[in-house]
């Protein structure tokens, strides 16, 4: 204990000595302060508010009523068990599909591997309802397959089964991207050694490859679980009566005007996400044998044995085909007069979308444009500070930015209502709050990309610059930023897309003054106007593509040799 205290004291004094040096650099000092203050204000404070609200009744007295309600109300308990069940099933299915894709990509001698990356990219740049919308168009009560082709009446895709299908198709790319990196970094020599020692291909897979990626599979399950649990859009669109915690928070706080009850549900969801995130971060990731950045000593000989290739590749092509078809259905649906009844061509939905929704389109775009550079720069600054500097409060910055990865959007949404509705800081209904929500939602990914690319750069390069007289600000702009510009620009694009397509947090924050496309889509889906919903979605996809195109053009102008941004 005393040893612990001594070490802590030493660390503190050492940090203090370091702070003296930093204090001489006013720009560095203010950058650190700015990061700490903004993370506190927009991440920690709202979450604290959620926690606090759930412990106090409307009169301000301490009360556990909200929790009592949570465990006595059948509705909330049902939502909790639904959420866990859904997360588990989708986690398993998406990991399985993702693993098949990753194995196919890294191990098999087949054509068209680029297709896999395209399919993996689509959910990332699409509106949150895209898959759900298509599934309804195909399998709904007026669905093309169920009704038009099979002639079924009263086909019901809404509920648990629809959600499983939609979430699996939406989230398997997460598993794929994680596992493909992992499989790629396995040195083929290890597997060759197993074969050399007499293992068959199947034995090699079972006894060498699978144990090596075991932690990756566990991690992929957890990440998909987190994503599924946090998902708001799909349960809203296709969940029907199958309530989840995320939708329950919304219904409770906005539908029933019971923010306290909503906050109690939000705390439950927050705990669940944090638990999974901590298991993933501190337990599973510790067990990883292969580093994702590792480079194999030589190329792997692809497997061309038909007994392996045909079933695995066949499965993957089929899934990829379905995913592509679902996405193509959206623009098609936007030109169809009345889906399931009248399949004639029309532009009515666009006329309607641009008429009623022009403000939503405009607001979404300019608010996203506003959030993009701030997030990009802030992400890189935080990455720089975290990787390269030592200061008191670094632990906080690390913690707060990790926290915002794990926090579901709906929880952030409730937190913002609670935190910014009343003095001292009133931001409800302002563009500032929407932009802040956009930033907080995309910042962690930007930081992670920045940290990853900074860690590959020798710190001696920064030291050399400091040694030659560069201040921290000069190092950041003249050395760091140019060296990690690919990560920076990917961060920009990612933020823009994520802001354009976000819904879970901002649905709590919109007012008559600002409307967003995603929310317009949700309104249309809820009132079964699928044509208009498709039109909005198509417009959204086009804006996103335009942004990627423009960024790549700008990048090419800046530096012809730079790697183009592909969102994989």
């Amino acid at each position, binding site marked *: 204990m005393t040893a612990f205290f001594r070490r802590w004291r030493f660390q503190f004094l*050492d940090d203090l000595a370091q702070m003296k040096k930093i204090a001489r650099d006013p720009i560095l000092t203010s950058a650190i302060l700015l990061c700490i203050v903004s993370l506190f204000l927009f991440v920690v404070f709202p979450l604290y508010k959620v926690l606090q609200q759930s412990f106090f009744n409307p009169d301000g007295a301490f009360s556990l009523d909200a929790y009592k309600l949570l465990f006595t109300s059948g509705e909330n308990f049902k939502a909790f068990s639904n959420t866990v069940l859904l997360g588990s099933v989708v986690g398993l299915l998406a990991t399985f599909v993702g693993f098949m894709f990753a194995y196919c990509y890294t191990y098999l001698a087949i054509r068209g591997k680029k297709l896999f990356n395209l399919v993996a990219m689509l959910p990332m740049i699409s509106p949150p309802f895209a898959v759900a919308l298509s599934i309804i168009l195909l399998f709904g009560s007026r669905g093309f397959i169920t009704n038009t082709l099979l002639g079924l009446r009263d086909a019901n895709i809404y509920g648990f089964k629809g959600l499983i299908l939609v979430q699996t198709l939406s989230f398997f790319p997460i598993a794929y991207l994680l596992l493909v990196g992992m499989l790629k970094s396995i040195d083929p020599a290890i597997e060759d050694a197993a074969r050399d020692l007499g293992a068959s291909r199947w034995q090699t897979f079972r006894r060498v490859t699978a144990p090596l990626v075991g932690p990756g599979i566990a991690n992929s399950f957890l990440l998909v679980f987190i994503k599924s649990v946090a998902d708001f859009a799909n349960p809203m669109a296709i969940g029907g009566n199958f309530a989840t915690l995320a939708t329950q928070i919304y219904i409770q706080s906005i539908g029933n005007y019971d923010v306290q009850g909503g906050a109690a549900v939000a705390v439950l969801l927050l705990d669940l996400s944090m638990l999974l995130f901590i298991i993933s971060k501190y337990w599973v990731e510790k067990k990883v044998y292969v580093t994702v950045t590792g480079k194999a000593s030589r190329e792997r000989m692809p497997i061309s044995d038909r007994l392996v290739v045909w079933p695995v590749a066949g499965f993957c092509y089929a899934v990829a085909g379905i995913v592509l078809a679902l996405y193509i259905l959206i623009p098609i649906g936007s030109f169809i007069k009345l889906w399931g009844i009248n399949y004639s061509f029309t532009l009515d939905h666009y006329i309607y979308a641009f008429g009623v929704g022009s403000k939503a389109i405009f607001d979404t775009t300019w608010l996203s444009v506003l959030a993009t550079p701030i997030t990009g720069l802030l992400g890189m600054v935080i990455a720089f500070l975290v990787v390269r500097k030592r200061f008191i409060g670094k632990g906080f910055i690390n913690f707060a930015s990790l926290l915002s990865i794990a926090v579901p959007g709906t929880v952030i949404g409730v937190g913002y209502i609670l935190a910014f509705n009343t003095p001292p800081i009133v931001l409800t209904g302002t563009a500032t709050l929407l932009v802040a929500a956009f930033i907080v939602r995309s910042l962690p990914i930007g930081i992670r990309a920045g940290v990853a690319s900074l860690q590959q750069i020798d710190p001696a390069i920064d030291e*050399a610059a400091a040694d*030659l007289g560069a201040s921290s600000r000069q190092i950041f702009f003249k050395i760091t930023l140019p060296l990690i510009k690919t990560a920076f620009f990917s961060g920009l694009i990612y933020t823009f897309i994520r802001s354009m397509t976000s819904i879970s947090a901002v649905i709590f924050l919109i007012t008559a003054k600002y409307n967003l496309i995603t929310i317009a889509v949700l309104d249309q889906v809820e009132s079964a106007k699928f044509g208009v919903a498709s039109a909005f979605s198509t417009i959204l996809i086009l804006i996103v593509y335009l942004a990627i195109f423009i960024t790549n053009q700008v990048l090419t102008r800046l530096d012809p040799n730079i790697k183009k941004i592909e969102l994989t």
Partner: protein
Amino acid sequence: MRKMTTIELRNITKQFVTPDKAGTFKAVDDVSLRIEAGKFVTLLGPSGCGKTTILRMIAGFETPTAGEILVDGKRINDLPPDKRDSAMVFQSYALFPHLSVFNNVAFGLELKQMSAALIAEKVNAALQMVGLAGLENRQPNQLSGGQQQRVALARALVMEPSVLLFDEPLSNLDAKLRVHMRREIRHIQRQLGLTSVYVTHDQSEAMSLSDQVIVMNHGVIEQIGEPAEVYQKPASEFVADFIGVANFLDAEVLATEAEKTVVRLLDTPFAVPGRRDDLQPGEQVRLVIRPETVRLGREGAFAATVTYSTYMGPSQEYSIDLGGIRLQVEQPDPVGKERFAENSQVMVSFREESLHIVKKH
């Protein structure tokens, strides 16, 4: 333009948290030293001895836990690296990968907001000096290891620093180039008269470059001295062993006199030249005997058996058994001299002036 700068370390201690975060350890433990203006000083020692930590504290990348660093008498502990007038050549070169050779060297000057014409003049002169004229527009990844090293050196030199710091700059080069580069570094340093601190674990680098060698171990200084002094009169068994090859023989002090110290070695008295006030008669000590000072022949004081013999070109190397003690022996320039076969008998003698006494611990 000569800048005469002295560096002084007063009771410097640097503590780190151990990698397993279980405790702390002292990388540098209460070190005091003074580096005179214009001198080339080498910090020499095995890895983990604290030499790089000292260099990084002088540069400003680490802050001492205790003690003071003074440059020309002024305390600089809290000065960040960019405010210090020292320039460092890094082990990994640390060239900016996105900048050309010219822009790498110009980097520091641009921060000083010098005029473009002056920068060009200085950069070209620096590149000329390190023999890289004509490669201004190359990118770092288009250069060989030796060329990258020269860019790193030019980038430091062009700043006209008052102190030049080297962090094992030659360890990534092949053996021939290393020897060549250390001559060049020494030449340029003499020409400019720059106070220089050089960190290395390679004793031949330290010997050939320095005015003064500081031998370190476990965070403390074992010895400070000129290269010849450190080699011939090592202050401890560690220094004798770390620098070159040494035999250690147990001996007993018989008498300490004004001009010599008499010791008993293998039941024979030897008079080792030099006054040693730190020794007492009757004290058990260790004698340091360098392999090249041992004489082998038909005649001599002690009989021994050759257990190993090999021809190395410049010398013949032996391992001999002297009454159960194993000795390393090196006979320089073996051509024309008698060579002794393995298992043959040989007579051994020691020159008194080549013996050196270190304390036993």
